[in-house]
Structures are given as structure tokens and as C-alpha cells.
């Protein structure tokens, strides 16, 4: 069964409280008053019957006498002869029973109440008989009516004012419920009116304090979240700590905040996550929070709180969360610094390696070239060639590392591709090898980094010479008008590349077949990286006829030649 609402129960209680005493009172009154009434009637009738008996000495005991008695006593009179023999009655229908034996001349009258009829028996002193005076039993009808009326009024009043009264009592609770609902829905401005100093007001005041505390923590939480979100590891540890201290002071209302970092060795010996110290009322107190990443203690936050500020477990928890977040941010910043440092170190190292290798190569090459022109010794040409190769390898390694780091930026220039291809072919010094160059894109220039394109073309031609067998190397420069793009295809007539290896040739340190050739395995990988870094592409394409061989296609942004 459903429980009645509080208001319903209150109403029921009010009605019960109003009616039960009235009914009880009425019943009690009824009993008391009724009792008193009937005992009085009995006394009166007894006195009357004694008087009547005294008067009847010597009088005839007949109906006329009975009637006369009835008139004077305002009751009914019944006459009995000796031995209880019925003689006469003012109202024979009454059926007054024969007098009890106790009624003898000289005895007190006897009063008998039977079936709403009170009868007093008195013996006639002469012993002529017994007179009985009867009256209907006295009741209190007016009293009953009055009592009933009172009851009715009570019920009506209870029904009429009960709901209003119970509403008055319940309404603060209803308001409280509504306010709590708003609070739960997130409206932290919901407050209860506090009037007077009753229990409800005290409850309201206590609720308002709770709401205030909630709102304050919420504000703290928002500030803390904002502070945490504003912590960027890129700013470095020092800036991070400064930001965090300011944010914590603002969010928690601290008068001073210090963040102490432990450094790589963790907390100093003896340091604990010192709990909030003893708090002396009225004095500023210290709170601490560990800066932790998992099990690691990165540092500790120590703050001073003003004495008036409430500091509860919830605040403690919030500060703890802040500490954890800050710890993570500090750790990130430290790692970020370390990574940046390593990247710079790597760049510095590569610069050093490059410098220390290229500088002697420059001298070797310069003197070998000079000597070659002076003496004509062909061995000097080999020195030049090999020093070029070595220096290309060094620069390839550097390029790979820069492609990885994404720091390469092309210097885009416009130039005609076929002369460049021709020049690179000649620089390879393999004039005896069959080579054709077809220009199908007259009227167009490539827009790309000239040095990079030279490197790519060099790698493609070098590859064709190494793996393409004796067949003709065919280079075609064509236009793909859609982009527009210049497509340079380099084709050899060697064994070709197995389909599944078409992408593998661009992987670093790949030589196909495995272990073959004397290349570094970097050429094609670097070539593709460079092509992509200047908005182009490098891929293998099917030969398109039965002759087989390998075809590389280099796509580069194109510009139409127009004067203007």
C-alpha cells in the first residue's frame, strides 16, 4: 500500500487529534451526567412514594385514588394490596411488577429501574398495601444533541482548516525539496529563505551553508581545471610552476604557495608527504599536497591558508587532485625539455659529423681536380669521383635524418627539366651506355627545388645503370594537364621489380635482390622523401608493354611558359 503523503498524514493526524478528545470528553460527560441524573430521579421518586404511602393510610386503594396520585406526582401510580396483589393503576398498561419482598411497612422505599421505567415502591404504614410511583427513566437528550453538534463542528472545522494548516506546516519542506532539486540540477545559486529561529529555519540555514560550500568548491574546481588546462609542457618547468602557484592561490584562496620540485633523485631523504599540520583555531595554517606521477614523487606543494577560511576534506581532496595534475604536467615538461635537448643535440652532432667529413672531402676533391688538369692522370679522376660519392653518402644520411625530423624546406625555383636530366646523365660519366631523352612537355617548366630534383634524377639514373642491364635507359618528360604536373619517367630494360617489391624499393637500406649492388640503399628512399617534401611524388609504374624492365615516375608541380 502506498504511504500517504506527508500532508495527508498530517491532515489525518490533525483530524484525529481534534476529534478523539471531543468524542472521549462527550462520552465521559454523558456517562457522568447520566449517572447523576438517574440517582437523583431515584431519590426524588423514593421521597414521593413515601409521602404518597403516608397519605394513603385509611384511603381506599382503588383506581380513583391511583389517578389522583398520578396527577399529584406527575407520574403513574400503581396500588398493590398485601402480599403484592395488584389493586389498581393510573395506567394499567404499564405492567408495573409486584413489589419486591423488602418493601414492608416501616422500611425505606425501594427503587427499581426496568425497561426505561423507574419505579419507587413504598409500603403504606397501616399495612394496607404498597404504592408504586413510576416515571420513565430520565435521559439527557439535549446533552446528546449538544455533543453531536460539537462533534460535527469539530469535524467540519478540521476538514476546512486542516489542509490549510497542514500546508502551512509542510510548505517549507516542499520549498526545501524544490531548492535541493535545483541544487542537484546544478543551480548552485539556489538558497532557502531563513526566517525566525525554528527548526525549519535552522535546517534552511544549514542547507544554505552546504550550498555555499558547494558553490565555493565548484568555483575552486573550475579555477583548478582552468589552471590545469592552461599548463603547457612547452612553456618549460619554471613557467609551469609559476602558473601553477598563481592558479592554486586563486583557486583555494591561499596567502602563499610554494612548489618545491625534487629533481631526478626523488624526494630528499626524510621528506614525507607531510600531512596538514596541527591546526590552531584563529591561526593561519599550512596545507601540503604531493606532486605525484604514479608512485613517483615529483615535488610537493606547500601553501598557507588564512585562518578564517574553512578547510574540509573536500578541499583537501581537490588540492590533492591539483597536485597530481601538476605533477603530470611537470613531468611532461621535463620530458619535453629533455626531448628538445636531445633533438638539438642530434642536430648539433649531425652538423659536426657533416662538417668534419665534408671539409676534408672538399680539400681532397679540390686538389685532385687541380692535379688532374695539370697532369692528366686518370687515377685522379677516380679520386674525384669517389670523394663525390662519399660526400653524397654523407649528405644522404643527413637528409634522411632531416626528412625524419620534417625540417627540410625546398627552395622552389622554375626550370626546364630535360636540360637538367641531360646534365645529370652527363655527370654520371657513362657516355657509352645507350640513353634517350624525350621532351613531350615543351612550354612547361617544373616548379621545384633544383638541387633536390638533381639528386632524385641522379638516384633514378644511377639505379637504372646499376640494375637495368645493358638495355637503353629511356627518359621521358611529359605533362599531366590535370594537376598540372610534369611527369618524368625513367625506364630501364632490366629484369624489372617483382610486383610485391614495388613499394619496398623505397624502403631505407633495401637492395633488390637482397645484398646485391654497391649502393647505400638510401638513394631511392631519400629521393621519394625529397619528392614528397616539395609537393611531388615518386613511384614505380608498370612498363606498359612486353619489353619489361623498371619504370620510375617522378611527378613535380608544373608552370606554363607565358611572357607576362
Amino acid at each position, binding site marked *: 500500500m502506498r504511504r500517504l503523503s506527508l500532508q495527508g498524514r498530517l491532515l489525518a493526524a490533525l483530524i484525529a487529534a481534534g476529534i478523539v478528545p471531543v468524542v472521549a470528553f462527550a462520552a465521559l460527560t454523558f456517562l457522568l451526567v447520566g449517572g447523576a441524573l438517574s440517582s437523583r430521579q431515584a431519590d426524588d421518586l423514593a421521597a414521593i412514594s413515601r409521602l404518597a404511602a403516608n397519605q394513603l393510610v385509611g384511603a381506599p386503594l382503588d383506581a380513583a385514588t391511583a389517578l389522583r396520585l398520578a396527577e399529584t406526582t406527575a407520574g403513574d401510580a400503581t396500588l398493590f394490596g398485601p402480599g403484592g396483589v395488584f389493586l389498581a393503576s393510573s395506567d394499567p398498561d404499564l405492567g408495573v411488577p409486584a413489589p419486591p419482598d423488602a418493601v414492608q411497612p416501616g422500611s425505606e422505599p425501594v427503587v427499581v429501574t426496568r425497561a426505561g421505567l423507574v419505579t419507587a415502591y413504598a409500603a403504606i404504614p397501616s399495612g394496607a398495601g404498597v404504592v408504586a410511583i413510576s416515571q420513565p427513566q430520565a435521559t439527557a437528550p439535549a446533552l446528546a444533541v449538544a455533543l453531536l453538534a460539537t462533534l460535527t463542528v469539530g469535524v467540519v472545522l478540521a476538514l476546512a482548516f486542516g489542509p490549510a494548516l497542514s500546508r502551512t506546516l509542510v510548505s517549507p519542506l516542499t520549498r526545501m525539496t524544490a531548492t535541493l532539486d535545483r541544487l542537484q540540477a546544478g543551480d548552485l545559486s539556489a538558497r532557502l529563505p531563513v526566517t525566525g529561529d525554528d527548526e525549519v529555519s535552522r535546517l534552511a540555514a544549514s542547507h544554505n551553508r552546504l550550498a555555499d560550500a558547494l558553490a565555493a568548491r565548484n568555483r575552486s574546481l573550475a579555477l583548478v581545471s582552468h589552471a590545469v588546462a592552461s599548463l603547457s609542457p612547452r612553456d618549460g618547468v619554471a613557467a609551469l610552476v609559476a602558473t601553477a602557484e598563481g592558479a592554486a592561490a586563486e583557486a583555494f584562496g591561499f596567502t602563499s604557495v610554494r612548489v618545491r620540485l625534487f629533481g631526478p633523485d626523488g624526494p630528499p631523504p626524510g621528506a614525507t608527504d607531510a600531512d596538514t599540520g596541527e591546526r590552531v583555531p584563529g591561526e593561519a595554517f599550512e596545507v601540503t599536497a604531493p606532486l605525484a606521477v604514479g608512485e613517483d614523487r615529483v615535488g610537493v606543494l606547500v601553501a598557507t591558508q588564512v585562518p578564517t577560511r574553512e578547510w574540509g576534506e573536500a578541499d583537501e581532496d581537490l588540492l590533492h587532485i591539483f597536485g597530481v595534475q601538476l605533477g603530470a604536467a611537470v613531468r611532461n615538461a621535463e620530458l619535453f625539455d629533455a626531448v628538445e635537448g636531445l633533438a638539438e643535440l642530434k642536430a648539433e652532432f649531425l652538423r659536426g659529423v657533416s*662538417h668534419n667529413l665534408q671539409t676534408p672531402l672538399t680539400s681532397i676533391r679540390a686538389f685532385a681536380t687541380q692535379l688532374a688538369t695539370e697532369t692528366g692522370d686518370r687515377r685522379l679522376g677516380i679520386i674525384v669521383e669517389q670523394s663525390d660519392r662519399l660526400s653524397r653518402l654523407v649528405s644522404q644520411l643527413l637528409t634522411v635524418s632531416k626528412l625524419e625530423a620534417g625540417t627540410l*624546406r625546398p*627552395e622552389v625555383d622554375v626550370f626546364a627539366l630535360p636540360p637538367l636530366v641531360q646534365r645529370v646523365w652527363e655527370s654520371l660519366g657513362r657516355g657509352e651506355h645507350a640513353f634517350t631523352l624525350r621532351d613531350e612537355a615543351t612550354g612547361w617548366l617544373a616548379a621545384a627545388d633544383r638541387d633536390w630534383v638533381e639528386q632524385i634524377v641522379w638516384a633514378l639514373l644511377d639505379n637504372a645503370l646499376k640494375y637495368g642491364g645493358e638495355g637503353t635507359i629511356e627518359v621521358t618528360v611529359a605533362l599531366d594537364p590535370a594537376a598540372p604536373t610534369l611527369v618524368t619517367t625513367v625506364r630501364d630494360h632490366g629484369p624489372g621489380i617483382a610486383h610485391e617489391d614495388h613499394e619496398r624499393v623505397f624502403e631505407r637500406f633495401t637492395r633488390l635482390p637482397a645484398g646485391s649492388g654497391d649502393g647505400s640503399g638510401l638513394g631511392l628512399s631519400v629521393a621519394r622523401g625529397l619528392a614528397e617534401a616539395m609537393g611531388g611524388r615518386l613511384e614505380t609504374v608498370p612498363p606498359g608493354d612486353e619489353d619489361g624492365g623498371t619504370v620510375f615516375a617522378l611527378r613535380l608541380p608544373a608552370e606554363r611558359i607565358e611572357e607576362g
Partner: protein
Amino acid sequence: MAPHEPRILLVDDDANLLVFLAEQLKSDGFEVTTARDGVEALKRLESAWPDLLIVDMMMPRLDGLSLARQVKARADLPIIVLSAVDAGDSKAEALEEVAEDYITKPFHYPELRARIHRVLRRVGDRVPAGRLQLDPGLVLDLQRRRLVLDGVEVRLTPVESRLLYALAANLGQVVPTETLLARGWSETESPDPSYAWVTMRRLRRKLERDPDHPVFLETVRGVGYRLNRLTASSG
């Protein structure tokens, strides 16, 4: 150009290269002094001021970049930096700010010679070393290879900035296409006039507000190009 032979101060810690380059440069008609590191170079500069400084990037005691900064702080001496670092390196940008040009090791001597000539010629052009304002919203900052158009910074390629140097040196006058080719592509064999045409078109996309109706970079058909400065009054 100065009436005497161009004087070059060559600074490199590699003695072999120093000797070789000095010989080559002397045979090409330059007056050459050498130094083994930055500190020595500063000492040389106390006694004689050259027309051009060629300096190696990595040297003991005082490296090329620091030396170039110190020299530039004293006077506008043109500088070519020799380095094993190329354009993709993080130091390249810092280098561009102080050096007129740089050349990557290992280099071929003819290329270095071409660059020396180009830098000396550019100095002869007497372009203001700083920024050149063409209208309230357009500033050329050729030293740093960039321009700023209506607050937006646009990078220039080496060729573009060379062409703009040549045009800016003759502001408001027509520069023949052949001159531009010689300036822009001095180390390229047989540059074609089409290079200049296409590069000018690309340049207009960078510095004109409406590239189809150029106001700064004008074509004089069949002759060459002209760079215009728009004063506030003329528009």
C-alpha cells in the same frame, strides 16, 4: 665598384682548403687575406677592411655565425658563409639573417666564384640594406628573404630575392630580362627567358593584391620588368 681589385678575407680552420681557395681566388684576380679562426679574423679586420668576407661556419674559438654577427654589428660588410649545413637545417635561418649568401660544402670552386661575383654586384647595386617600403601595406625585406604584404609575412626563394634586388636597385626603371636572368640564375647554364617570365608570375602571386592586374611588378613587353613604388598620394 671600387677602383681596386676586390679584397676578400677568407676564414677557415682547414689549412688545406684555405691555401687552395686563396690560390684560386688570387688567380681569378681577387686580393686575398686569410685567417684560421674567428678571433684571428677580427684581428685582421682591425687593420684592413675587405670588400667581402668568406667564412667557414664551424671553427674553433669563434664560430662563423658569431663572427658574422659581430662583423654585421660593426658595419655592413657582405658575407658568404661556407658550411656543411644546407637550407633545411635549423641554423640556416639564423645564417640567412647575417649572411648575404652561403654555399654548402663540398662545393665546386666555379660555383663559389659565381656567388662571389653575384654578392659583389649586389652590393654595387646599392640597395638599401634594410627594408624597402613599396606602399603602406607592402614591405620588401630582401636581406631576410621575405616580404610583408598587409601584415602577412611571405617567404621569398633565393632566386626571387635576387630578382627583386636587381629590380629594387633600379626602382621605377625597366630592367632588361637578360639582366634579370644573369642575376637570378648566374650559376645555371643557359637560363631561358621563360624562367624569368614564370618566376615573375610566381612573384606577383606573392606581392600583388590582384596578380592579374599588377601594380608593383610591371611587364614592359619585349624588354623586361619594372618595380614600382606607390606613394601614398598616387594610390
